[in-house]
């Protein structure tokens, strides 16, 4: 269905090609998962399927890309619209109309499909994706998962043979991600659509894949059966790492496969010794929030939340899209709306403090962290941050080098940094003011496993140095390994609060893969399990 014939893609001004000698065939009706590190060329590979690369990006594409027999060098993306449907990372950015039903019809109108054909197709698509009740809703009012399904629906109505999805679940909470993936697998199974999908969170998608394509850092690709490719992939979800470490064969790709292998392991391991040191209750908490409420117009985003954050703890803030996580973080920081309650940090209320003082009390890395950056080079940003926080010159740059491990050229434009580096820069800018409380909103979005591991180390060090850290995230695997405490919000209220192990293992949606494999024992960290298992195996013999 899709054929890459010795494709080499080089962007303008780049020394090295981003894709090199790619020879790849994706058969019809197959779900193809594309993996690779951040910036490795996954998006380039996806967008070359309908010719957006190189037509929209510039650069030189050598070799041929054939889709359903059409050569993409001969036809522009618009002429391929009936064959390839492309859904981008941010569905809201790709909507043309403002109501769900009109959005579903837009593509068909462009393809000149007769009105009497359009009507039933829209109805079918609404049912197929389970969005029939949303048909008259404005697109902007939908939740992230609903928007993502509408975006998929809007290309499906044209009956494309190939569906290309770039990180369809990266912004979604676990439940919404399940909904979207269920819809995608239904397409593959029932309609025989060929799906090509890129994703960082392999734990969500790997089990559904028929073929895995791994884009290597040098631009070559490795592809084949999921188990074969994952056997040597450096970026792998917890079940795969567990299986590899313990030599399970065939390699488990899903929790279900792993549980079959794990019966013996479960008995041998026993309970994890949770030697979590109880936080020192005698010390005053870094931040005390009492009955915080946030109201946006008629919507009550946060209702009566009381929290205290202790020094030395990393707290996860979870909850579905729109449950009030961001509103709460902004209210705690003091720059956002707060309609009721008090937030006390070191004796002063964050709301009444000046922005400069506020910044030295609580640092917040917002969801679209790029909003904070506006200068041309990394060094300019760092110097500006030093000036803003009245810190010694070089403080911000030192923090940035510390976070990234050094080696980033100071003359680089912040937009040219990788996702992880840009996050580190914003974090460094915020840490320059030396706040005792650090809040991060969705920092793991777009980060691969290696970058997340680095972020985990950074947060742990911040906490060990005496800060209270809060991370709002949907990433259960990240929470399981990085956070001591988990707070779950629903409809603006705290519905669960406690040690991470207790909170996440109590919920099937929030439990990490290892916990599911070894349930009912509350293991969270795959490395701890592997260590314990090897100890247990090595001990008796």
């Amino acid at each position: 269905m899709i054929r890459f014939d010795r494709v080499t893609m080089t962007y303008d001004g780049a020394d090295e090609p981003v894709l090199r000698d790619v020879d790849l065939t994706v058969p019809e009706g197959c779900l193809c998962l594309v993996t690779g590190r951040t910036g490795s060329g996954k998006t380039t590979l996806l967008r070359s399927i309908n010719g957006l690369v190189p037509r929209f990006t510039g650069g030189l594409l050598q070799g041929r890309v054939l889709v359903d027999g059409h050569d993409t060098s001969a036809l522009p993306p618009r002429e391929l619209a009936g064959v390839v449907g492309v859904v981008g990372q941010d569905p809201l950015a790709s909507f043309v109309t403002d109501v769900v039903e009109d959005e579903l019809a837009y593509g068909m109108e462009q393809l000149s499909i007769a009105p009497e054909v359009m009507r039933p197709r829209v109805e079918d698509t609404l049912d197929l994706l389970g969005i029939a009740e949303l048909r008259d809703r404005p697109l902007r009012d939908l939740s992230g998962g609903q928007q993502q399904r509408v975006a998929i629906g809007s290309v499906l109505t044209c009956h494309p043979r190939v569906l290309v999805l770039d990180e369809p679940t990266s912004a979604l909470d676990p439940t919404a991600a399940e909904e979207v993936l269920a819809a995608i697998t239904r397409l593959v199974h029932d309609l025989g659509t060929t799906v090509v999908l890129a994703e960082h969170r392999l734990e969500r998608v790997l089990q559904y894949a028929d073929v895995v394509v791994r884009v290597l850092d040098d631009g070559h690709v490795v592809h084949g059966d999921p188990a074969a490719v994952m056997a040597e992939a450096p970026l792998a979800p917890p079940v795969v790492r567990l299986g590899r470490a313990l030599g399970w064969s065939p390699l488990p790709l899903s929790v279900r496969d792993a549980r079959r292998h794990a019966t013996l392991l479960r008995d041998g391991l026993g309970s994890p010794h949770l030697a979590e040191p109880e936080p020192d209750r005698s010390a005053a908490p870094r931040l005390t929030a009492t009955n915080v409420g946030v109201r946006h117009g008629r919507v009550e985003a946060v209702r009566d939340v009381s929290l205290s954050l202790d020094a030395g703890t990393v707290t996860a803030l979870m909850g579905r899209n729109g449950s009030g996580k961001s509103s709460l973080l902004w209210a705690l920081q003091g720059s956002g709306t707060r309609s009721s309650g008090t937030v006390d940090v070191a004796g002063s209320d964050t709301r009444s403090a000046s922005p400069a003082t506020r910044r030295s009390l609580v640092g917040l890395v917002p969801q679209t962290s790029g909003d904070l950056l506006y200068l041309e080079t990394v060094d300019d940003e760092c110097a500006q941050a030093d000036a803003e926080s009245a810190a010694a010159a070089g403080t911000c740059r030192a923090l940035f080098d510390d976070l990234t491990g050094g080696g980033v050229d100071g003359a680089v434009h912040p937009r040219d940094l990788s996702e992880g580096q840009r996050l580190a820069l914003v974090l460094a800018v915020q840490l320059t003011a030396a706040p005792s409380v650090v809040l991060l909103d969705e920092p793991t979005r777009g980060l691969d496993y290696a970058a997340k591991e680095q972020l985990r180390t950074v947060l742990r060090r911040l906490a060990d140095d005496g800060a209270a850290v809060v991370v709002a995230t949907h990433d259960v695997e990240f929470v399981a390994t990085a956070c001591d405490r988990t707070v779950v919000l629903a409809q603006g209220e705290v519905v669960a609060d406690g040690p991470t192990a207790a909170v996440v293992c109590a919920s099937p949606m929030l439990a990490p893969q290892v916990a599911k494999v070894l349930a009912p024992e509350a293991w969270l960290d795959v490395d701890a399990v592997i260590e314990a298992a090897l100890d247990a195996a090595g001990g008796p013999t």
Partner: protein
Amino acid sequence: MREATADAPAARSPRQRTARPLHPLAWWIWALGLAVAASRTTNPLSLCLIIAVACVVVAARRTDAPWARAFRGYLILGAVIVVIRVVAYMVLGNRVGTTVVLRLPEVDLPGWAAGIRLGGPVTLEGVLSAATDGLRLATMIISLGAANTLANPKRLLRCVPAALHEVGTAVVVSLSMAPQLAESVQRVRRARQLRAGTERGHRAVRAVAVPVLADALDRSLALAAAMDSRGYGRIGDTSPARRRLTGALLILGLIGVCIGVYGVLDGTTSAAQGLPVLAAGAALAVAGIATARRRVRPTAYRPDPWAWPEWLVSASGVAVAATLVASSRLDPDRVVPMFDPLAWPTLPALSTIGILVGLLPAVVAPPVPDRSAAGGAVGSGGTRPPASELRLAAAPVAGSHPGTAGSELVP
């Protein structure tokens, strides 16, 4: 809930009427009729009557959609126009009449500015004629504002012929960019607080402008890529020469139509000068649309129907315009009164009846689908259930326990 909204108007009219939005083109024809009528009279009573007609119809048939909330803004704009016109007259205007009401200090201008007066005596006649002049412009703007309030601008763009499809989509996209830009500015300003930005002046502007513009560019590129991959601007096998011909015909035609309309509506030239240009322009435009018909044309999903209410609404607009054009020729003294010598204007009978015909849409236009459905009315066709009902149905899904919503979808 649906029955309740359908029954409410039924209580007033003997026949059961289905709630549906009127075709946007009908609203625009009606509103343009009012605007043309306003352009032909300076009688303040007639002008106020036209504004009143527009207000009544808007009040009767307005939805609760975002674009429908702006009518008050048009009324305020109208008032501002009248005030500006009067103040400008008082400072700069020519002196007509003899009834001096106010004496402003007069500024002596140097010789090269002879003919321009600043200040001096202000006459009642002059103020009145300036006020009616301002009122005329205000009435035209309020009429067009009424059309914008009653019809979804995006929906109107769907009626444009295939030849103008690309331009129409570009306008739609830019319409949706404005609120996004505002949202983006708000977000970046909020983020600025996190850094406690201390810059002043142009550096502060830059701190907001750079991220906002970067964001806007990113969004535009993403949207352009999305639209292209969804088939926007497909040309099929139309030759470039044919596309150039279509473009040339359309542009020339539209220029001709503009000149022609100006000629017809401008009271000082005779209609005979404007009509031929208008006809030629229209012919060129039709030719352009006809050549465009041969190419791949996008089809319309659930187009708005054009039925008798649409005919009646647009006919009422044409009638208002026609009576005012006719009566301004038959009875110029009362339709276009001069305030020199001062006299109380009287309502001319023919034009008054004509203007009152413009009230017809308040009754004949179908009732608004659902007043509480802000966004639902955006694209609602006739048979779609009101959005508020759907919101209620959707609520339990959104608020359900994690896991239930997803499990329903598993094939």
